[in-house]
């Protein structure tokens, strides 16, 4: 994969993808729509303060060399250009993992979230979660496979804009809902070789202010994800669709003058929706997969014990189906060393 020659006329380098060739072989090659990508562009290079004026704002962006097209489906358009009816939007939603709520799992110091196998026990019959809690110093970053009663993944979308605009109900209506920036569904892409099920929020889920206290509460409830299908964007992955629930945590200024909502929500401006994710480890992962795709006999955390573990690092991708806002969450599937 080389750069395209950009010294002369603008050219288009087009190729069929692997899937395109496969569909052609099956007699099912039918192009019906197109999307536009800008994956190579780093918008941080847009210099609104360029001393030579506005003609130079995007000088560096326009000089970005473009790579040749290639045939894998998962690295050509990961994000894509968007169309919104209004051309005067100043803010677009962000997506973040909530690490403030007690039920929300956090990212560990090594940048992963643990997904522990509850059927894995140490030689002294202590479960892996207990051993891991000891080694990591807490259970803040440990999810238990197929157990939604403990830590869960909590994802929030909204404007992470600080106090301008503030996270009020009015601003949620004006900046999010009125501009059609609400995520009613999320697509969760996961490697079905290692993860067998994704669960999302059921109809009882709620995340809202507790009246009169300045606090916020989270009501959880899970249901199996809808429409798990082979991923169209990541090879060997599956896509699950989960609900997005309106985030009803709003700015709440207490006696100290600070917004206490920020103690519960990671969005610092108007909030959109949130979702909850529960994961189950594929029960049929053989030891050879831990050896091939992961590591075996490893200690974790500070090594408070001499316990060793087998683990596989994978990722899930969470994408808002409306705005395309997306994030990647590294997951470490872990068990007691075999």
């Amino acid at each position, binding site marked *: 994969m080389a750069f395209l020659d950009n010294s002369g006329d603008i050219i288009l380098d087009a190729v069929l993808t692997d899937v395109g060739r496969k569909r052609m072989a099956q007699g099912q090659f039918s192009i019906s729509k197109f999307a536009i990508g800008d994956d190579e562009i780093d918008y941080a290079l847009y210099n609104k303060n360029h001393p030579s004026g506005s003609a130079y704002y995007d000088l560096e962006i326009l000089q970005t060399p473009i790579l040749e097209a290639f045939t894998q489906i998962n690295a050509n358009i990961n994000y894509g250009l968007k169309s919104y009816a209004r*051309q005067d939007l100043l803010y677009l939603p962000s997506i973040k993992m909530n690490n403030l709520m007690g039920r929300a799992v956090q990212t560990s110091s090594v940048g992963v979230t643990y997904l522990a196998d509850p059927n894995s026990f140490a030689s002294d019959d202590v479960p892996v979660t207990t051993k891991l809690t000891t080694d990591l110093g807490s259970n803040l970053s440990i999810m238990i496979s197929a157990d939604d009663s403990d830590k869960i993944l909590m994802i929030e979308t909204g404007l992470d804009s600080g106090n301008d605009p503030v996270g009020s109900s009015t601003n949620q209506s004006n900046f999010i809902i009125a501009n059609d920036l609400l995520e009613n569904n999320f697509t969760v892409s996961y490697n079905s070789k290692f993860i067998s099920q994704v669960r999302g929020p059921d109809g009882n889920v709620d995340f809202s202010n507790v009246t009169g206290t300045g606090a916020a509460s989270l009501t959880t409830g899970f249901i199996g994800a809808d429409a798990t299908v082979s991923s169209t964007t990541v090879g060997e992955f599956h896509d699950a669709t989960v609900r997005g629930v309106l985030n009803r945590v709003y700015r709440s200024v207490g006696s100290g003058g600070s917004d206490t909502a920020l103690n519960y929500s990671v969005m610092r401006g108007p909030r959109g929706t949130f979702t909850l994710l529960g994961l189950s480890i594929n029960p049929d992962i053989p030891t050879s997969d831990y050896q091939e795709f992961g590591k075996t006999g490893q200690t974790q955390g500070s090594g408070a014990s001499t316990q060793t573990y087998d683990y596989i690092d994978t990722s899930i991708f969470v994408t808002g189906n409306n705005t395309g806002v997306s994030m990647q969450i590294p997951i470490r599937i872990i068990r007691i060393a075999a």
Partner: protein
Amino acid sequence: MPTTYETLNVATDSTTTKTILHEVLPLTGTLASGTYDSPDGTSFNIKNYTHGMFQSVYDYPFLSSSANHIYDITIGYDESSQFSGSTSTQNSKKINIYNQFAQILLGYTESANTVRLFENDLTLDNEGVMQNVFVIPFSRLITKDQVKKGTFSMTLGTGSYLNPFNESNADSLIKLQDLSASDQGGTTPTIGGDYGILYLSSGSAPTKLGDNGIGAVFYQAGVAVVTASVLDNIANSEFIVNATGIANLSQSVDQALTGSSITASCDALRNRIGNITFNNSTEINSTIYFCRLPVNKFNYSSNPTYTLGSKIRVKNVASDLPVSYVTTVGLYNARNELLAVAKLSEPLKKTPQNEMTLRVRLDY
């Protein structure tokens, strides 16, 4: 994963075209000479087979995975040929070779249902038949869809065996060209495709030497057929000299047809093949998709760098125009599967003040 798609209307947003591409193929005599040795000396670019019915010429020692098959060489005669006889070496194989090519390229006569014979004209009237022929089938890798009519040229050396391309004698080099053939005519359609006649030619602006052809070239099949008599008048009648295992041997073409193997005759012919040149043709069928980006669409991006703290980087205030940059066009099916992708050589700026149509061509 993009979430904004624009529908392509097959009737209005796509079209199909056909383009014919031509390549010039200069096949130099150094390939045919067979002196292309592999570094370890274990293989050459000429491949012989135990059945001995033809030779293959490669562009590199054929045991190498880098080698490409260029063409084959064989020789054959019809059973009505004066050289056909039970005492002739590989008699049945030479007849088989002739019949195989004749029946595939020319088919059968309508009356007696016998195989047509190669002729030195375009009429297929059993006049001017070529009963004894050299056959050179070219690899599809070389000819692609077909040989371009009117471009075939082959030179043969007619000097002595040791000096077939005697530069001191202008007559020792003959040139065969399909001078009368063109895309507009000068060919005859047969079941094996169109064929044109190879004539002896001379001059930089080539002209025919005589009205009779001395071979035929089948354009779609990529096969050249040359009458063996074209080498009747080589110096000293030295077509084969000292073939492998036979000392002090010197055979004319006629003698080789009866007294030598196909392989030996192929070796001898390769010794005299100079350059072969032609243009090949490749038919490219294309579908062009016109991806229209209207003024009010694709002006924002879900690229993670597009915002900083949810604020769009390319704007200072809400009234500033949104800006995005196009680098890639993805073509999808109804299931959102990416079937084809096109990349621009440089980013294109998209704002609500401009619209663009990106013309994506897929070749088949």
